[in-house]
């Protein structure tokens, strides 16, 4: 446990080489990959997310921590598959058409990946149909939409409408987020949920996956 606490600590500091080394060491000592992931990497990333939310740390710290987290996760991925640890499901994510802002969306991707979800990141300026196509192709259960511009928020409604038009409502859930977006707006456009930030997006996605 001492070692996993240290792994979490190094992740928080963004020491990717050290995270990689400790992950390998933990594997070599025979610790289950799922435990290294949960009590090391995810535990560390949770603290990072929490501190970012409190403005205690800033974007550069989160990006460095994410890099460290990915270094450890790459190492664990084949082991998790070998151990038959079930994947937590796929999420299609992107910033809606007309919007080029992807910092918030990237943070959500980091937190979701950290929580064990497979994220299909479509990037920014993504057309409504592209979200639904990707969700069908990847058999994703959740589509996550981001917008920073008030002017692009209406595109979110189009994605919800397309999910319904293709008969995917209930099978594919839509969650929305971004600075101008609110729970009221999510309700109004018929989205399944709203995530205030990266950390809450993880909780909401977990609830949407479980609600099936």
């Amino acid at each position: 446990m001492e070692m996993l606490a240290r792994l979490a600590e190094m992740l928080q500091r963004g020491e990717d080489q050290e995270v990689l080394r400790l992950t390998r060491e933990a594997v070599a000592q025979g610790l289950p990959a799922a435990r290294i992931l949960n009590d090391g990497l995810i535990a560390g990333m949770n603290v990072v997310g929490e501190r970012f939310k409190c403005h205690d740390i800033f974007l550069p710290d989160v990006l460095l921590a994410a890099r460290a987290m990915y270094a450890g996760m790459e190492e664990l991925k084949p082991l998790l598959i070998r151990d038959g640890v079930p994947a937590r499901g796929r999420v299609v994510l992107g910033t809606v058409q007309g919007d080029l802002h992807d910092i918030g969306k990237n943070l959500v991707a980091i937190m979701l990946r950290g929580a064990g979800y497979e994220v299909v990141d479509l990037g920014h300026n993504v057309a409504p149909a592209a979200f639904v196509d990707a969700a069908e192709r990847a058999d994703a259960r959740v589509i996550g939409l981001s917008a920073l511009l008030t002017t692009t928020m209406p595109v979110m409604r189009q994605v919800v409408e397309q999910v319904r038009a293709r008969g995917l409502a209930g099978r594919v859930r839509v969650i929305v987020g971004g600075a101008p977006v609110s729970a009221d707006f999510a309700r109004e456009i018929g989205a399944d949920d709203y995530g205030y930030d990266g950390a809450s997006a993880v909780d909401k996605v977990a609830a949407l996956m479980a609600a099936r």
Partner: protein
Amino acid sequence: MRPILERVGRGEVLLADGAMGTLLMARGLKAGECPEALNLDRPDVVASVSADYAAAGADIVLTNTFGGSPLKLALYGLEERTEAVNAAAVAAARRGAGDGVYVAASCGPTGRMLQPYGDTPPEAVAAAFARQLAALAAAGVDLIVVETMTDLAEAVLAVAAARAAAPGVPVAATMTFDVTPNGFFTIMGVDIPRAARELAAAGAHILGANCGVGVEPMVAAAAELRRATDRPLLVQANAGLPELRDGAPVWPETPDVYAGRAAALPALGVGIIGGCCGTTPAHIAALRRMLDARR
């Protein structure tokens, strides 16, 4: 016209314009289109925005070049037209605003994350700003406004590029600060004293804050800027934070509310006041009345 720095240096308060993007949308720019492409395709529309702000009493209009760096234009396949896009923007602003109004070149972030946090080397960002600012300088501007920056390294590169491209043109640099329990910070963790110190060292003549928050927090940010520097200040706040009413975003600070709160800015030594997201020619007209009433 007398130079901007001279007027501001004598304690005069100049009025800049308000939001550009939302007005362009109202006049035909579609979601997903490149706002700067309008400089070439619909220069009349771009000029009409400057004309409306000038009519509202603005002393300074900003060009439609916020996303005019080749790195940003590349997202729309317009990288090769960087020179034409930026030159056309200056011409449209100049024509729209008419005589007696300063034209300021807007220079926003590249949208790329610099190394080591992202994948873009600083040299690429420096080269992008150099190319955009050379085009703006060649078209002839009265001021360069490096704005809405959150990464100090990127802001410093833009200021340095502006100084090099247009040695005779004053440069203002504004960053976007969030209100946190520990004070004002950009999302990249830059506080006001550090921003003021490094932007001044990079050669910015005017320092300031824009976007992100409404006027009230902006007054507090201006007070902190005042303590951090003796250079003239530039403030362009949002019209509050957007609220949703019947599915449409509404900016809560009406022109009178905005101007009423902004009345605290001149006493803090803010030499240029304008507006950012959600502000309209009506906001600028209200600021004009507020500033004229002080005289």
